[in-house]
């Protein structure tokens, strides 16, 4: 058809479809959930970013001083410290950048100063709200304060707020801080290579061999997901610490530092890498292997030209996921890192140890960069993945091969022993009375109420928090995903929503938690009543784990034909009725998966909530951290294992429940 054939439409507004009530409800709901993501993620991150530019500097012009002669009378003309500094150059500009708790002594501006001299001094702020201390008393007014020499040496100027890049300058010019970038990246790279290699062979054994006990191995491989990343650190202390059972294996090297972080990281990232690679290896085309046999390729060659290319997307994706998990992890390096500084722990140290929130924000910004890059590359690679299986493919089935099967069995057993050993050590340590001097068993380490961290109350809080997160999170995430997938038009809105939903994956938990302090603990924020409540922990956790849940939900929803909506519309049924009567029941397996995912993660998360818990809402995972911090390692192990058992029980419950529900609602899937 050519342009000429199209009759020009009459001038006027372009015709647009009328919005039905359903559309309005759906768009309204989408905007509500979009706003939720905006408030719980975008705005706090913005608050954090602006905090990183908020500096404290000494404003020497804001104070005036007068000096008397030797008799203590006849004061000189008032002069500001700025003028004196311009003349004498006592402090440089970089000395004027300070933290919020900075103090600047004033006697350095008086070369002849002696605290025994009879000279008197007067000092004042030139504007209201200026701040200087005499001893530890704060002076904010503009009245002159007269002081003798001995008291004048106790005067300290306080910095005032400003905006600028000063914090970033300070960060990059302090090697103690900026070295952590290198440390973090190196640790993450090494852990990634080791984990992906091990996970690949493990997944290979499970998918491409005929070894025995595959189900059992699969179960064991998933166990690390059920514990906080602090736990492998604690296990390593008992295994390789100075009193460790296997200390000799390290040949004198210290477990506290990079070695410990790498071993622990391999432990807690293993299941993530294994799952992704296993999916990639699960399906393959037998015809390619036949071709390779026909062409007389050696098994080695076949492996490199058929197997690896087939799994390449899985491998790349696993690598970036592991990299991201390691570089953003806080719990493990906190426990086992020793003096080896990494970014995530730096944030904690800056904020918790030194009250330097601005520097904490700067480190957060630095940490977000590699996390976002890794995440973005992973998304790009994933989007390039094409279907390996066509209609003509023949599924590849492994054939028995004794030597190969047994060597893979031996390898898998080693991995299983590694994982179970770490957990076993923690349980053993938790039951021993006083390691290593009194090895009799006792339950002393379970008296959590006598330790830091919130006691048994923290454990029950954790369960409550995890349940709330699972229920509320699943509802919000699934409904949000439904709206994005199934509403009509409104393209910009849907795209924005998708973007918001993907963002949490790239934001490290520490960063999110810190951003929440800045945003919610601001008294001008109408939402600040949430600060210190259970609600903020639930909100933070839902947001932190939003992306994976969202992706699970959209995948399930994409399997449902949009014609359901069309049919329901033509039957004049409201979409929400369709949602509750058809969509939800059909998608129940996915909904259950999301809820267990949220539950388990809420039980184990430390990084996002460590800045947000209050005494009434202390959590089990935080208790593990705090007990370990105070040197109570055995009780920390005990609490860590409680989390493991709870999560394992939740998993089993989930399995039983899904079986039951599937039988009732998913009968249609079979024939």
């Amino acid at each position, binding site marked *: 058809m050519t342009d000429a054939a199209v009759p020009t439409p009459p001038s006027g507004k372009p015709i647009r479809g009328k919005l039905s009530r359903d559309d309005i409800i759906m768009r309204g709901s989408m905007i509500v959930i979009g706003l939720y993501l905006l408030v719980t993620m975008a705005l706090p991150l913005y608050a954090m970013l602006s905090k990183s530019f908020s500096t404290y500097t000494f404003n020497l012009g804001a104070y005036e001083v007068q000096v008397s002669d030797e008799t203590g009378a006849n004061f000189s003309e008032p002069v500001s410290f700025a003028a004196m500094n311009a003349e004498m150059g006592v402090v440089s500009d970089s000395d004027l950048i*300070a933290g*919020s*708790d*900075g*103090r600047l*002594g004033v006697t350095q501006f008086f070369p002849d100063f002696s605290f025994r001299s009879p000279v008197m001094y007067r000092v004042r702020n030139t504007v209201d709200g200026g701040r200087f*201390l005499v*001893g*530890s*008393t*704060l002076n904010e007014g503009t009245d002159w304060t007269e002081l003798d020499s001995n008291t004048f040496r*106790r005067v*300290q100027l*306080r910095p005032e707020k400003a905006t600028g890049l000063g914090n970033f300058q300070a960060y990059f010019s*302090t090697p*103690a*801080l900026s*070295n952590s970038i290198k440390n973090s990246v190196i640790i993450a790279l090494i852990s990634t290579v080791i984990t992906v290699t091990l996970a690949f062979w493990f997944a290979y054994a499970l998918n491409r061999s005929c070894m025995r006990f595959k189900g059992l191995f699969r179960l064991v491989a998933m166990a690390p997901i059920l514990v906080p990343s602090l736990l492998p650190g604690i296990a390593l*202390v008992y295994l390789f*610490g*100075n*009193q460790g059972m296997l200390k000799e294996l390290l040949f004198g090297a*210290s477990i*506290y*530092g990079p070695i410990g972080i790498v071993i622990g990281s391999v432990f807690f990232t293993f299941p993530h890498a294994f799952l992704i690679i296993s999916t990639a290896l699960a399906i393959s085309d037998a015809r390619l292997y036949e071709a390779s046999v026909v062409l007389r390729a050696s098994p080695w060659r076949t492996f490199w030209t058929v197997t690896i290319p087939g799994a390449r997307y899985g491998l790349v994706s696993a690598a970036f996921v592991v990299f991201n998990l390691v570089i953003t992890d806080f719990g493990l390096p906190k426990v086992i890192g*020793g*003096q*080896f*500084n990494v970014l995530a722990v730096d944030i904690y*140290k800056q*904020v*918790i*140890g*030194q*009250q330097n*929130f601005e520097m904490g924000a700067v480190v957060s910004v630095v940490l977000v960069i590699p996390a976002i890059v890794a995440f973005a590359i992973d998304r790009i690679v994933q989007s390039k993945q094409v279907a390996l299986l066509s209609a003509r493919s023949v599924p590849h089935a492994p054939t028995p091969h004794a030597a190969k099967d047994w060597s893979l069995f031996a390898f898998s057993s080693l991995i299983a022993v590694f994982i179970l050993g770490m957990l076993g050590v923690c349980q053993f340590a938790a039951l021993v009375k*006083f390691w*290593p*001097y*009194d090895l009799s068993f006792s339950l002393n380490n379970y008296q959590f*109420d*006598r*330790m*830091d961290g919130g006691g048994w109350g923290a454990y*029950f809080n954790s*369960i*409550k928090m995890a349940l709330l997160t699972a229920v509320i999170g699943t509802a919000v995430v699934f409904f949000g995903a439904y709206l994005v997938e199934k509403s009509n038009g409104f393209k910009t809105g849907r795209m924005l929503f998708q973007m918001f939903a993907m963002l949490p994956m790239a934001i490290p938990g520490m960063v999110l938690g810190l951003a929440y302090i800045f945003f919610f*603990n601001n*008294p001008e924020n109408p939402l*600040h009543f949430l*600060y210190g409540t259970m609600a903020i922990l639930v909100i933070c956790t839902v947001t932190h784990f939003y992306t994976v849940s969202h992706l699970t939900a959209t995948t399930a929803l994409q399997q449902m034909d949009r014609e359901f909506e069309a049919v329901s519309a033509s039957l004049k049924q409201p979409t929400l009725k369709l949602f509750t009567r058809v969509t939800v029941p059909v998608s129940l397996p996915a909904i259950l998966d999301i809820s267990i995912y949220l539950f388990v993660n809420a039980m184990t998360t430390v990084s996002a909530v460590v800045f947000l818990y*209050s*005494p*009434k809402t202390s959590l089990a995972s935080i208790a593990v951290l*705090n007990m370990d*911090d*105070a*040197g*109570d*390692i055995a009780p920390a192990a005990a609490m860590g294992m409680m989390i493991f058992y709870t999560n394992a029980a939740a998993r089993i419950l989930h399995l039983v429940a899904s079986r039951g529900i599937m039988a009732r609602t998913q009968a249609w899937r079979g024939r």
Partner: protein
Amino acid sequence: MSSKPLTKILGTVAAFAFATAAYAETELTVYTAVEAEDLARYAETFNASHPDIKINWVRDSTGVITAKLLAERDNPQADVIWGLAATSLLLLKSEGMLEAYAPAGVEALDPKFVDGDNPPAWVGMDAWVASVCYNTVEAEKNGLTPPTSWKDLTDAQYKGHVVMPNPASSGTGFLDVSSWLQMFGEEEGWAFMDALHGNIARYTHSGSAPCKLAAAGETTIGVSFAFRGAKSKAAGAPLDIIVPSEGVGWDMEATAIVAGTANLEAAQKLVDFTVTKEANEMYNTGYAVVAYPGVAKPVEHFPENLLDKMIENDFEFAANNRAAILKEWQGRYDGKSDPK
């Protein structure tokens, strides 16, 4: 009082909880850095005379609690601070965050333990004193001889066997550093720390951790405080508590009311209680030095010469130079990436 379904399961616990809930009229949020295992005892003793005030503890290490309080400057969550380092309270005072109040009976206390202003912004409870925890079993294994002074700790034989708290996050760590600078002078003090750093296996986040690590044999020497050492020793750890001959740093735990509290009356009652003889006897269970003269009895396993070794501590120096000292400390020692 929340009634969580799970607490109901624990029958007796629940009954007890509801019993207290029935009497509690006011709830006070009390920030503290007192050891966790003592908190229940403190609250019980207080509630014996004041059953109508319920204490909600917020406990963390000194640095964390100080950070929390400073962060909440514009939106204070605490009503009372009971048991935080005087150095930290001076910081809070300089931010105008403390409500000056002279508790009934404050005259009876040793004036050294009371803020100089009238009415005082804070009142002291007890002093906690630095000490070295020395694991005799591990020492024998490693062929070490016991140190007698701070300077001894820089000896090459202790390389990798010393653990101390990070002064940035731990009050104990900071009082050590501040005492070394006060005793040895700036230059010699930093030179001493340079040498000590060579022997340090690692710096911990909390001040009690080094002693607990020494008790567990994870390290041989833990720079910590005497109270913690005495406790671990009582628990059966093979520890000697060594008081270095040059003198030891100390800080006091103190109490203050947070300005702007909604429960001023209850807060004042609590602070009144904290200066009583009864309260001081309670502190004395763990602390050999308390604010109320004549109360202190010797504490089991406490080193005897400890009191004579406490230095003249300049709290104002410590508070006002804290930022500068920590910056210097971090520049020197925090950047070393390998625990050598």
